[in-house]
């Protein structure tokens, strides 16, 4: 087997870029579909963080493959790392805030580990806006 030529490598990079672009946009589309169709806040956050992180990783990897500029590659990798680091943090914070603020759970929810926890947990969680008003009074 002969060593791969530069032309062969360029063609390979082109195909990989196209594949990564399609994969990434499909993942992002699935994430948006999940956000639009899932039954409650906590199930909606699953596609919004996990699938989107994967989709963004694919799209930005495609950028690193499509360019020859090291600066562009570095920035794309930095963006991937940034999304990987921040997506879970943001999801955790908004999920916690939503739960404490009384976001509805799906009827089919099996485990609610925060239920009945003392002080600051689900025990003081307002079930509805009227319950929150009672607590404030």
């Amino acid at each position, binding site marked *: 087997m002969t060593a791969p030529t530069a032309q062969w490598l360029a063609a390979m990079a082109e195909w990989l870029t196209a594949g990564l672009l399609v994969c990434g946009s499909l993942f992002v589309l699935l994430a948006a579909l999940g*956000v639009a169709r899932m039954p409650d806040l906590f199930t909606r956050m699953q596609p919004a963080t996990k699938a989107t992180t994967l*989709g963004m990783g694919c799209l930005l990897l495609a*950028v690193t493959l499509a360019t020859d500029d090291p600066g562009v590659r570095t920035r794309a990798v930095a963006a991937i790392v940034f999304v990987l680091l921040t997506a879970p943090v*943001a999801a955790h914070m*908004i999920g916690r805030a939503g739960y404490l603020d009384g976001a509805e759970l799906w009827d089919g929810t099996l485990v609610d580990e925060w239920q009945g926890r003392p002080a600051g947990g689900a025990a003081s969680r307002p079930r509805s806006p009227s319950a929150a008003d009672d607590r404030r009074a």
Partner: protein
Amino acid sequence: MPAVLPLVQALLSVALLLTFSRLVRGPHLADRVVALDLTALIVVGLIAVYVIQTGEAALLDAAIVLALIGFLSTVAFARYLERRIRR
């Protein structure tokens, strides 16, 4: 590869529309925040595709800044929600 770019942009646009529907409907404020966060990330993806299309490297900086602003706004909304409960 250029043949793929319009398809990718169309898929991302449909994703934007679906996310927008959740932003409009979302029963709870947290649902809307999740939709906003997702919108920012989809736009980052669109910018990445545009960088490939045009070779304009400076746009990647805009993508990184947009991701940063999306994260910061989500964190700010979460803090606001939690503080609203404590009162």
